């Protein structure tokens, strides 16, 4: 049974989150670092270059890395203070076992015993219930090497189909839409292409708080004449000074895109030559858009007609443009359709595959891009290969030295994996880099599932909220304790460099995975001695796939400050070996060659043409109604990251925005009898939350916003709905019906928990 072993306060007292601060050598100005390590931030998908100051096997500070071309020294507050996650009082330095007799609920155990225990439990459960009774959860903050190894471990060592990852909550709507429209899943242009473009359309992205470094690109573009369109239910810091603000009602994005495309069709603001020569499917999309008249679009989306016309005119008549979107349109049960709606606007304009004209998704996690390409996604094999495709299976089975018949088929998405636990089909779980108890919607259900597990093992560096349920915790590695590669927002593969050694019994995550494989008696394929060796195998495994990394080497990345995939080791036209391919910064350029189209066109389909897809509007599941009349939407604040496992332990970041609040418009607050700072209770069909109200005019009056970085009774995912997109399986975090009332008094937690707990 995986109940929490003791009262939560007992666990928190021992394992935190407690706050780190600048003390000792980190505060001293007389202590010089021994060296500066060039690496990247451990948080979001921007992957800013940074130099860590290292002394006595401790990261004592940072120095901006101004030569790295993407961010040129720029950092957000998380990047500035990220060094304070190291040498932390909460750091796990031994393996732990659950122990209800201990006040903290856990006791230390020797690492080797912990590995033996994990292996024997997995072995026992698989023998009794079958290989599929064990599930694996990964994460997109891991290096690509680790995600590759984890996918291989699940399929080859555990022989279970049930592996998925937290990118399921992040990137999959964009990925699925990209696959359907382009045959490849990657941002099309480097960010530098934004500067000099006529129009930038930001659809559902709070750039200033979620990808702050992108702000300077947008402002530079504006200085050079670009108009900025922002589509968001909140007036975010970038929306404040944009040229056109589209105050879309949560969950209505596909309708907005269809309505704008209809205006473009009516006014003939289309690139007919591009549509005819490089695309298929436009007629069906045009037919669908016909029903999206201006008045209907305005009614459904809440965006005034004149604003829709203005957006259509600017977008339709531009010579160059850049459109990007993020979770705001993707976190929906209609997420793939929303993303396809943006792609239709781009394809109709013909502005793609050119300098100053592009399309992209702003990835959320460090390795949101690389983490979805090489095999921890339930339906994929390395190189963005399809686990259901016999040719792809044969190739990867060959690389792995196993029989193709032995490779499991597709598994299920991360949320469905929990439903399988609920149904008793999955009985053991191994989780790394994932905190589903905070991050999945309707998380009371997730907690119930965790309690049902027969065996639960976690690899992590801090005891995250989900790990409270673990039977065994294996102490993994922090970002700065290992090396490897990640692929950032532009599709640029970059190098993470090791700064310090793991403390105590902690060790690199890939070693832990291999140790489990060895203890299970199946070490074949899990005897790598360093990340470089894993990467060398990954190069071969990705070769010939759409996400071809075969021409990438650590040296090439370091020398060129990043390499954009695909990067070939063999000329895709001739098959001749090449060792100097420098990657593909810009996709779909006229005349470009790719191994799928083989010269017939720039897109990754056999005919070389991009696909228009009918992007159908569907109202959200659990939409606002009379009983629950207000839209609840969730998102980030700039000083916190994801479920806060790291950032809720960094003192200065917690101080910046200590606790979640319910953001609401003064008109709504007045109606509810609430003032700024009052305790307010929000309620949906799944649960309630009581937080202080923040009353601001910068949000739609029919909508409330709660940031999602906090656990327990402070988590808005107690309220969110587990509705998922039918294609991508992304949960609908960005909208559900709710009601709000004045709270009866402060919540219970206010008297016992610190803000970050």
């Amino acid at each position, binding site marked *: 049974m995986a109940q929490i072993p003791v009262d939560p306060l007992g666990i928190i007292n021992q394992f935190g989150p407690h706050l780190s601060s*600048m003390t000792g050598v980190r505060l001293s*100005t007389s202590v010089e670092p021994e060296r500066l390590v060039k690496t990247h931030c451990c948080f979001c998908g921007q992957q800013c270059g940074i130099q860590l100051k290292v002394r006595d096997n401790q990261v004592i500070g940072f120095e901006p890395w101004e030569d790295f071309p993407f961010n040129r020294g720029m950092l957000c*507050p998380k990047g500035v203070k990220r060094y304070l996650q190291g040498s932390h009082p909460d750091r796990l330095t031994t393996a732990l076992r659950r122990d209800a007799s201990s006040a903290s609920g856990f006791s230390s155990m020797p690492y080797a015993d912990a590995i033996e225990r994990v292996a024997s439990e997995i072995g026992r459960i698989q023998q009794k219930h079958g290989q599929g009774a064990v599930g694996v959860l990964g994460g997109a903050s891991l290096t690509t090497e680790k995600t590759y190894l984890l996918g291989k471990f699940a399929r080859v060592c555990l022989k279970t189909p049930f592996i998925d990852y937290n990118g399921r909550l992040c990137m999959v709507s964009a990925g699925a839409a990209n696959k359907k429209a382009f045959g490849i899943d990657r941002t099309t242009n480097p960010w530098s292409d934004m500067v000099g473009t006529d129009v930038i359309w930001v659809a559902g992205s709070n750039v200033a708080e979620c990808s702050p470094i992108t702000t300077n690109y947008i402002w*530079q573009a504006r200085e050079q004449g670009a108009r900025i369109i922002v589509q968001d239910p909140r007036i975010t810091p970038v929306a404040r000074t944009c040229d056109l603000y589209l105050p879309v009602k949560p969950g209505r994005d596909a309708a907005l895109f269809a309505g704008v495309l209809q205006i473009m069709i009516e006014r003939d603001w289309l690139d007919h030559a591009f549509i005819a020569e490089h695309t298929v499917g436009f007629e069906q999309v045009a037919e669908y858009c016909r029903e999206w008249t201006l008045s209907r679009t305005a009614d459904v989306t809440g965006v005034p007609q004149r604003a829709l016309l*203005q957006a259509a005119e600017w977008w339709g008549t531009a010579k160059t443009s850049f459109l990007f979107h993020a979770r705001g349109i993707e976190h929906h049960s209609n997420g793939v359709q929303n993303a396809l709606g943006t792609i239709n606007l781009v394809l109709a304009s013909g502005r793609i595959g050119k300098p100053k004209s592009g399309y992209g998704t702003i990835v959320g996690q460090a390795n949101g891009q690389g983490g979805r390409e090489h095999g921890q996604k339930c339906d994929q094999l390395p190189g963005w290969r399809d686990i259901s495709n016999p040719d792809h299976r044969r190739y990867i089975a060959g690389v792995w030295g196993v029989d193709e018949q032995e490779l499991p088929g597709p598994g299920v998405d991360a949320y469905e994996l929990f439903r399988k636990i609920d149904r008793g089909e999955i009985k053991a779980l191994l989780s790394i880099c994932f905190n589903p108890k905070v991050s999945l919607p309707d998380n009371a259900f997730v907690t119930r599932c965790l309690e049902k597990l027969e065996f639960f093992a976690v690899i992590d560096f801090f005891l995250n909220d989900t790990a409270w349920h673990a039977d065994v915790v294996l102490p993994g590695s922090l970002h700065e304790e290992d090396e490897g590669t990640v692929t950032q927002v532009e599709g640029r593969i970059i190098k993470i460099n090791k700064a310090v050694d793991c403390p105590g019994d902690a060790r690199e995550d890939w070693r832990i995975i291999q140790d489990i494989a060895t203890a299970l008696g199946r070490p074949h394929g899990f005897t790598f001695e360093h990340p470089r060796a894993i990467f060398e195998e990954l190069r071969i495994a990705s070769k010939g796939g759409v996400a071809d990394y075969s021409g990438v080497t650590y040296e090439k990345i370091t020398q060129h400050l990043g390499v954009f995939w695909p990067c070939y080791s063999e000329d895709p036209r001739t098959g001749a070996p090449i060792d100097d391919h420098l990657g593909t910064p810009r996709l779909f350029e006229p005349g470009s060659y790719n191994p799928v189209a083989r010269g017939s066109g720039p897109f990754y389909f056999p005919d070389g043409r991009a696909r228009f897809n009918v992007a159908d509007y569907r109202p959200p599941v659990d939409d606002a109604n009379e009983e629950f009349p207000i839209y609840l939407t969730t998102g980030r604040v*700039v000083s916190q990251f994801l479920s806060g496992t790291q950032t809720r332990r960094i003192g200065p970041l917690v101080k910046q925005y200590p606790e979640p609040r319910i953001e609401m418009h003064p008109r709504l607050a007045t109606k509810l009898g609430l003032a700024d700072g009052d305790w307010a209770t929000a309620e949906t069909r799944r649960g309630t939350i009581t937080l202080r109200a923040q009353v601001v*005019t910068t949000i739609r009056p029919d909508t409330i916003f709660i940031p999602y970085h906090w656990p327990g009774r402070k988590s808005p995912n107690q309220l969110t709905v587990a509705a998922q997109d039918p294609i991508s399986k992304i949960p609908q975090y960005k909208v559900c019906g709710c009601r709000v009332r004045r709270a009866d008094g402060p919540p219970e937690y206010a008297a016992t928990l610190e803000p970050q707990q």
Partner: protein
Amino acid sequence: MAKPDYLLFFIDPNRCIGCQACVQACSECDTHRGESMIHLEFISRSESVQTVPVVCMHCDQPTCAEVCPADAIKRTGDGVVQSARKPRCIACGNCVVACPFGVPELYEDRKIMMKCDMCYDRTSVGRKPMCATVCPSQALFFGSREQIEQLRPLSAPVNTFHFGNQTITTQVQIMVPRALAKTAPHVDVAAAMDDQPRSRAVSLKMVGAVEGDPFAEVEV
């Protein structure tokens, strides 16, 4: 060592996204490690997300130094107004009251005034200040006049400020729309003290909305 003359500090509040990277980075600077000297002000959070980063403007004739009875505030030859000198500062707070920009702060526990010194440990050796290096919106920019002119054709630097009857010129430059810089080449600091300062109005460019409230048509 001195800050090179051609390198200047520019602030463009229009770009600021309130992320506080500057605040966090300021406390990493060696001359005041652990303390942030930068002020990140929300103009009026209930009405807008607008924020303004405030660093020391490094006045050509610093009022803080002029009112200091202990002569503790020095302006170095390169135009940087330094933090109070420890042996001299009597923590009287005259400078705090007198500064037109509200920059110096009194640290009662240490009995000293501290303020932004343009990261003198960095700028005096030709490097950029911490805040301007990390600022992700580049609302804080450190570089040459030629660089900023090339990068930002829509705006122009202004370094003359009216504070009541006092006219102040500063080393730090504020970026304003280029057209405005020609017609009104100064910034009226005291105007911000009006009941309804014009600068506070949120001018959100949203077609079709009632002036001042983009959500006027949304039913509650």
